[in-house]
């Protein structure tokens, strides 16, 4: 039952604040996140980043403890799998080094200038979005470190997302799982192109441009988008698919980067103007080595 107390000032205030909120939303939507709201966001993030850093510093060991407990379950199996992977990678590394030497020799003979590898800024993930609907991560590097809006962000596995806003000391990344994110990709095996769209988390949605193409489970999808360097692994096809006549070819894909537990990332110093000149080699996931952070 509602309690009535003459003039209910809290109800009037509530109604007024609802109106204020709706006005704010409309104004912000019209300004497309820029204008006064953009300035306020940048200012708030600048002020709040030290608070988040302090809280993160204090809580990280506690969270790490709980994380460690939850990880214990699969630790033995993962250890065995990693040993096998190390042995396989050592073999592949030896073969790659030999091929690299041959390529360098051939490039010298032919007088070809090899493409320069991209600069990257290593950063630590400081905070998440304010809710599960917010596929956002905040990193501890910003404008001061050379990061600007729209730069691609990667981790060991592959593409994580892109920078959507930046302050002097921090930057916000929108993950590829966000429903507003679309990335043009190429199937590494066939060269066919398609578009990956975020679904809010977990799997991504893949729509191929050529409906006659076929997809096999495990097919690697790499960037073929002017906003990102070409050749960065993005996802693997989760379920094989073949188009029926007159229908589009759609399926789902699993992100290569471990987005739910991403801790360190690299921001590639890349703008879309560089797209033509800074293509990464196929099979070379990121191009530069991960820079360790103490």
């Amino acid at each position, binding site marked *: 039952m509602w309690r009535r107390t003459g003039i*209910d000032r809290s109800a009037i205030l509530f109604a007024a604040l609802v109106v204020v909120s709706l006005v704010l939303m409309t104004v912000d939507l019209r300004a497309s996140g820029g204008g006064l709201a953009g300035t306020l966001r940048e200012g708030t993030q600048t002020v*709040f980043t030290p608070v988040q850093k302090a809280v993160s510093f204090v809580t990280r060991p506690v*969270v790490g403890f709980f994380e460690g407990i*939850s990880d214990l379950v699969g630790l033995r199996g993962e250890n065995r799998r990693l040993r096998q992977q190390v042995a396989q990678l050592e073999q592949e590394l030896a073969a790659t080094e030999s091929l690299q030497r041959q390529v360098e020799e051939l490039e010298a003979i032919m007088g070809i200038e090899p493409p320069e590898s991209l600069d990257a800024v290593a950063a630590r993930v400081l905070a998440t979005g*304010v809710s*599960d609907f917010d596929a*956002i991560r905040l990193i501890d590097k910003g404008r001061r470190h050379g990061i600007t809006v729209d730069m691609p962000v990667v981790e060991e596995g592959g593409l994580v997302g892109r920078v959507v806003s930046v302050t002097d000391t921090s930057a916000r990344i929108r993950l590829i799982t966000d429903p507003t994110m679309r990335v043009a990709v190429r199937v590494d095996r066939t060269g066919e192109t398609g578009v990956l769209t975020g679904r809010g988390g977990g799997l991504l949605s893949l729509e191929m441009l050529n409906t006659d193409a076929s997809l096999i489970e495990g097919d690697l999808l790499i960037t073929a988008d002017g906003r990102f360097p070409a050749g960065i692994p993005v996802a693997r096809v989760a379920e094989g698919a073949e188009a029926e006549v007159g229908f589009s070819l759609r399926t789902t894909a699993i992100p290569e980067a471990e987005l739910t537990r991403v801790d360190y990332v690299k921001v590639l110093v890349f703008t879309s103007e560089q797209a033509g000149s800074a293509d990464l080699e196929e099979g070379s996931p990121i191009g530069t080595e991960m820079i360790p952070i103490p």
Partner: protein
Amino acid sequence: MAVALALLGVALQTTLFVRFRPFDATPALALLVVLALARHLGRVESVVLGFGTGLLLDLLSETALGLWALVATTVAFVTVRLRHRFEDDVTLLIPGIFLVSFGALALYGLLGTIFGEQTLADAQVVRKMLLPAVYNTVLAAVVLPPVTKLVGERGRSQTSWGGL
């Protein structure tokens, strides 16, 4: 004290679950703190605090400014309206926290879609409303007692708007 607790709620909400995300979901901790504070503060004060906390969430996210403000204000207002029932019957508190949390996230989903956030296009929309509400219900056992101890009766008696 109430403002400090709300700030702490927002800071914990954004930093605690970077890597530890059971079932890839996190509690709506900031909303739970607003709810916990609104049980004790004055009516007007609670609504203002809800709005302020929501606005801070808006400024720390990429959503339309005012979206979280509206949701958190609603959480505070509903809690203020229903708190006497929680006090009369404590067994209503647990389902109450679940319903308020779930309702708040459902409101966010609806408004987010209207204001171009594509929230309902999210394939995991139900899970993202349900799991945080469940986590909030569980975490209430940890959050509510200290908030009651820190602002409790003092909050209601000392506020200049306490009787409103």
